[in-house]
């Protein structure tokens, strides 16, 4: 890690659904300007971690601290599956939602803001898509639109929840270029990813999660066969009759 000021720090965080912890006594931090992939098996709590950082989930125990950025200023990209793709809304309006911090529910949306939206669309390779219905474009293009929404928010902390699921390789390549550009601009990017090859190639740092922290640090160290095996063993253990946890990590 190049800079050691933590942008996000979690101390002893437990988030639970139905009292079963999805992340369990997790302590970790993300340095300012880092580009970190969050990896782990299904059900390891990756999305839960990102949602906790975004302030969408309240930890049962412990706390999440953001340094130098407010919760509302965080740019969060939800999983595409969570978005109603038949909703009658134009691509431009989706991108403009990224300016919510400035416009709120009542503020004016100026011509300049629309130009910003068009520029963001052009950056993600969707020139002239402003008037198209969000539901009428392909899944890959929808993901590009959501990236444009993140882009326009101009945030110092960017959280991406499975940004490349159901997206073709060309789109992935374009979007990774955009992520690397954000990294170059000194923004902090945390992304939930599944493809280990992708992570090794493009993400300097990783955090391996299996409800508890398995490893964090340089990607080449974190994604070792031993760590991955351990992560899988840990996440498969779901005890229906688990006792109440009294320990701390």
């Amino acid at each position, binding site marked *: 890690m190049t800079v050691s000021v933590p942008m996000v720090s979690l101390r002893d965080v437990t988030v639970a659904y139905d009292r079963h912890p999805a992340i369990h006594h997790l302590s970790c931090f993300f340095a300012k300007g880092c580009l970190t992939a969050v990896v782990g098996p299904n059900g390891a709590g990756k999305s839960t971690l990102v949602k906790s950082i975004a302030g969408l989930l309240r930890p049962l125990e412990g706390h999440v601290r953001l340094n130098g950025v407010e919760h509302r200023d965080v740019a969060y990209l939800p999983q595409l599956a969570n978005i109603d793709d038949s909703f009658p809304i*134009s691509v431009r309006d989706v991108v403009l939602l990224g300016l*919510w911090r400035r416009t709120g529910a*009542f503020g004016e949306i100026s011509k300049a803001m629309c130009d910003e939206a068009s520029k963001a669309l052009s950056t993600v390779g969707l020139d002239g898509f402003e008037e198209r219905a969000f539901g009428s474009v392909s899944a890959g293009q929808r993901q590009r639109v959501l990236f444009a929404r993140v882009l326009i928010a101009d945030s110092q902390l960017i959280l991406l929840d499975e940004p490349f699921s159901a997206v073709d390789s060309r789109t992935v390549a374009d979007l990774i270029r955009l992520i690397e550009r954000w990294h170059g601009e000194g923004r902090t990017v945390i992304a939930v990813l599944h493809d280990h090859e992708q992570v090794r190639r493009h993400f300097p740092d990783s955090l391996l999660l299996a409800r508890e922290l398995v490893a964090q640090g340089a990607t080449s160290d974190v994604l070792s066969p031993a760590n991955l095996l351990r992560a899988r063993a840990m996440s498969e253990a779901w005890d229906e009759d688990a006792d109440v946890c009294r320990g701390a990590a």
Partner: protein
Amino acid sequence: MTVLYDWLIGPFADFSFMRRALVACLALSLGSGAMGVFLVLRRMSLIGDTMAHSVLPGAAIGFMLAGVSLPAMSLGGFVAGLLVALASGLVSRFTPLKEDASFASFFMISLAIGVLLVSTHGSTVDLMHVLFGSILAVDDSSLILMASVASVTLLLLAVIFRGLVAECFDPLYLRAVKGRGGVYHVLFLVLVVLNMVSGFQALGTLMAVGLMMLPATAARFWARQVWSLIFVATLTAFVSGYIGLVLSYQYNLPSGPAIVLVAGMIYLISIAVGPRDGIFLRLLTRRHLRS
């Protein structure tokens, strides 16, 4: 020409109760069109139905306390509808029960209370009146109530429009930017209850939902943006009201069902010939565009 006049305009020129009914339809359409569109967008189409029924016990209590009094019955209905909406909202927020399930549960409780009250303290005629309304007997105070509800609905909707659309489209994102989506949702539910109360005077609790949902689902086949959907739905609702009134006058039919049936016809026609995914258009344009 005179035949046409006698048919289409005569009833309204000759009788003031027809004119009142027409104005009532206009007021109802202005509020209900938009409510229906947002209910469909929020995937709450059937919740309109449950809300309408939950108005009944409140109206019945109002009736028991003050007789056939518009303010008492409206206030009672409004309070009952709001209680059901808020209770359902709270249950779906704090328990694993989904919103539609909790709405269904509370409205059944509410409806049962309503039927119990009406049948022990009123006559069957009263129950029929509440269930099916009487748009041909709309008086000045009802008209003022409907017009006020329509005005409040349109004004408030204009204020919260962006927030409400954002909350419908991507609630998680709105929560991430601390957009307070819950506030818009609650305000929207209050508006829905208000419009139900305004509608049940004229059309009855059951038919009021028809004028809310059918134009909204029909609009889906004509428009592709939230504002244009609302425009088409409002227009459809008013046209249904007008044609329904004419038919009910000429053929001596009950006006509420006549109006809703016309809206139903427009819905079926829209499915068939609507330019957006209508069935005929899809059959006619089998041949796709150049890639």
